[in-house]
């Protein structure tokens, strides 16, 4: 080492904005954003549900009353929708959790082949609106279904509760699978081996060790499925026929009859089970994470042939069912008339709807904006909450996790009741309606985005921040030059998540679209309700195509740079 001379280099007078101020500003703005676009709409619904309504003028009159609830519970047809919803949700929860558990077990605890392919196939329901399942089921088992009418020529069809339950199972499958997959790969599988080496049979080990150690993951998956199934709107409206559930009831009361009183009241009724399910999910997820051992995954011993083959058959059976949902819709979009005329055609792709195929572009640009806005807000939010911990970190965290508890439909209803009134109308603002759609999707999916961003921040050592600070960087520059580059992967996966949610969401935005701002996923539902099954299949196919292409491009870009997507890291 040579000696050094300390040269006094004249530094310009540096202006450092007070770090606290920047954090207060960023966190405060996000908090304000959530208060205005999440808390107020929901509180407003609660308020309106106990406000007198003029059924003739279709407006709320300022008096507080419990009449709406009395009204609600006096209409047996509507009250029934609550029982229907619970019935659907409970069955969907039980079936999905069991099916997904064994699927995840096959991927994590057996040595079946093609695990990665199976994992991706299991994720396919995420890339389409949650009515694709109902559409496919109707095409196969409806009154004109390929299997019911075509193959067996029976009168029986799938409309009603059975159809809804099967659709929900197919739709919720990946959500439950991801949780159970994480749980089963994290819980030390050596416990199983230890039990086996002590002489326990495979079945005993499974029930006495595997299931108990994974129980919190199982409960958390079940609670999530319950929440998703009870709040889903797309599938029940398509396949339910006369079988009304809470979400479809809200829609019909509001859109069909302008009964905002009943709409808000039913929304409050729906909020109760969905909030409870969310709280349980949250609680069990925390519990489950605390049980995860940081130990490296041991190599799995080769499964016995019987086990291996049973799981191969089982997992592929499910994979084929999930895939066929997509295949049926894609095929349907290319045949002239399903079941009657199987000639190939592209005519369904000439959409005779307001906006035509343009709705796809609207969806696309809105989703890109949602992706960037959502990913940016949640990464900043994660940084503020986890790394900077201002005095309001806890309430900010609370506000950030609440959205997952609020059904999209309720949030959407809340939006039109606040931002689309004679006092305040988003249509009067330039791009106001698009903006409100974007904000709604960002808010509705804020929870997962923030939680994954917090996890990411936890993985960045606090000395990174401090090193930058001690070298003279203020919070903004530390964030932009150090924290953000280190969070690229997390940012991208949040961006993808938001993009996908925005492309496929129905319930959150169904009250918000207009002829000006029409979205592809909503067009699918409108076309399908209209009986235009070919064009609706075509639009659904285009949505899937766009999502797959965008995902493909992003993962290619990232692979080049040596990155892996978050989901890939797990397989």
């Amino acid at each position, binding site marked *: *080492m*040579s*000696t*050094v001379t*300390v*040269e*006094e*280099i004249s*530094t*310009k007078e*540096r202006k*450092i904005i*007070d*770090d606290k101020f920047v954090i207060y500003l960023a966190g405060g703005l996000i908090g304000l954003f959530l208060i205005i676009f999440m808390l107020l709409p929901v509180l407003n619904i609660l308020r309106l549900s106990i406000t007198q309504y003029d059924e003739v003028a279709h407006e709320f009159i300022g008096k507080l009353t419990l009449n709406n609830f009395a009204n609600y519970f006096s209409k047996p047809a509507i009250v029934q929708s609550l029982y229907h919803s619970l019935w659907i949700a409970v069955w969907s929860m039980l079936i999905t959790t069991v099916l997904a558990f064994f699927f995840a077990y096959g991927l994590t605890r057996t040595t079946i082949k093609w695990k990665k392919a199976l994992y991706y196939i299991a994720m396919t329901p995420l890339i389409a609106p949650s009515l694709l399942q109902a559409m496919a089921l109707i095409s196969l088992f409806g009154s004109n279904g390929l299997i019911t009418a075509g193959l067996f020529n029976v009168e029986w069809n799938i409309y009603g509760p059975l159809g809804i339950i099967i659709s929900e199972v197919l739709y919720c499958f990946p959500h439950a699978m991801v949780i159970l997959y994480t749980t089963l790969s994290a819980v030390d599988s050596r416990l199983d081996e230890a039990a086996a080496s002590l002489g326990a049979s495979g079945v005993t080990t499974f029930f006495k060790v595997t299931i108990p150690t994974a129980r919190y993951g199982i409960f958390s998956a079940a609670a999530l499925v319950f929440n998703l199934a009870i709040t889903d709107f797309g599938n029940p409206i398509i396949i339910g026929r006369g079988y009304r559930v809470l979400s479809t009831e809200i829609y019909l009361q509001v859109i069909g009859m302008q009964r905002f009183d009943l709409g808000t009241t039913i929304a409050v009724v729906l909020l109760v089970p969905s909030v409870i399910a969310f709280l349980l999910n949250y609680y069990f997820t925390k519990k489950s994470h605390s049980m995860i051992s940081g130990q490296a995954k041991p190599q799995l011993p080769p499964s016995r042939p019987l086990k291996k083959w049973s799981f191969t058959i089982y997992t592929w059976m499910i994979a084929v069912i999930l895939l066929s949902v997509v295949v049926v819709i894609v095929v349907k979009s290319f045949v002239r008339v399903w079941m009657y005329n199987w000639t190939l055609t592209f005519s369904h792709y000439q959409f005779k709807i307001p906006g035509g195929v343009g709705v796809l572009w609207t969806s696309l640009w809105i989703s890109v904006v949602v992706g960037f806005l959502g990913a940016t807000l949640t990464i900043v939010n994660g940084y503020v909450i986890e790394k900077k911990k201002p005095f309001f970190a806890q309430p900010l965290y609370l506000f950030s996790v609440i959205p997952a508890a609020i059904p999209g439909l309720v949030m959407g209803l809340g939006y039109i009741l606040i931002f689309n009134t004679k006092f305040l109308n988003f249509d009067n603002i330039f791009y106001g309606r698009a903006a409100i759609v974007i904000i709604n999707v960002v808010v509705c999916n804020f929870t997962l985005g923030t939680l994954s961003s917090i996890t990411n921040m936890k993985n960045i*050592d606090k*000395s*990174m921040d*401090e*090193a*930058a*600070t*001690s*070298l*003279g*960087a*203020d919070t903004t*520059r530390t964030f932009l*030059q*150090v924290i953000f*580059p*280190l969070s690229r992967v997390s940012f991208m996966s949040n961006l993808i998540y938001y993009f996908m949610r925005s492309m496929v969401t129905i319930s959150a935005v169904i009250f918000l679209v207009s002829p000006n701002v029409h979205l592809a996923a909503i067009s699918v539902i409108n076309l399908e309700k209209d009986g235009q099954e070919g064009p609706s299949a075509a639009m659904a196919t285009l949505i899937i195509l766009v999502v797959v292409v965008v995902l493909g491009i992003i993962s290619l870009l990232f692979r080049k740079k040596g990155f892996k997507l978050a989901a890939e890291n797990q397989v």
Partner: protein
Amino acid sequence: MAKNLVLKNLSKKFDNIYAVKNMNLEIKDGEFITLLGPSGCGKTTTLRMIAGFETPTDGEINYGGRVINDLIPQKRNFGIVFQSYALFPHMRVSENVAFGLKMHKYPKDKIDQRVDELLNIVGLREHKHKYPAELSGGMQQRVALARALAPSPEVLLLDEPLSALDAKIRVKLRAEIKQLQVDLGITTIYVTHDQEEALSISDRVVVMNQGIIEQIDKPVAIYKNPISKYVADFVGTSNFFEGRLSDGIVDNPEGKFKVTNAIGIKSGMVTAAIRPEKVEIIGDKADSSVAIQNVVSGKLMVIVFLGLIVRLVIRLKTQDVIVDMLEKRFTEMGIERGETVKLYFPPEGFIVYKNE
């Protein structure tokens, strides 16, 4: 003007537990001072308060005559080297070193010049285009040092900078750090739990124990005159004999030890400490029936060759004693393992501490 760093009654509480309590320390301009103590004794907390990452619960930090308790870290202009290096993994070596210069708005050409200068100093000029992950631990630590020094900080803070490295590199790097510090004349606060490292590198050592300072002194003084049993135990190796002190004699189950260094203590329960190199082995051929004062016999259990010296573990009736002696002399004496030997504990070799 000389800028001293003065800690006055500095305290930090976490959830009602003091991590640092009433710390008083004056660090002179250009001094190399080390905070030494076991894990959890509050070294890092002290350093982080000085750096500005923790706000003191009580007391003040005074730098150059100015209280800096509330000064934000960016304005303190203190360089920090972290235990984990905390290099920015997405930046090349040169970008890491340039980071602080950019933040301080150095002109572009000055930045390049300064980066090269620093990389020369730490001998990593040819690695400037690499990413941290492509370097060995020792090289990464050098980069961290270069990065901390680049904006010419007035004080350098190092938190266990070498603890993640191999023993050999550790010794080499600590010499380099010391040399660099002497060349730059920069006030340096170094944190370590390694007493050998502390003694070899510092102008003064601060021995800490559960948030409080036990002793502040030059390395030699700390070693020769540990102020408490804790320091005697933590710094270097000591043999301890507990017993009742009266008339300059400590009465221990092993025997009665005459002590001369019982300063200020007249009587009561005490612990007499003696360094391994102060204990002497006297000729085994000596008459074993005669009990001489301060001579105890024991059985040689373990012999560890450490190059110039050997370390012996000798079992007495109730405890083991560690003895260091020159290897040459040990070989001359021709003692074997398992043999009984006689140990002489010179009265002036003991330091006596009052038991709490």
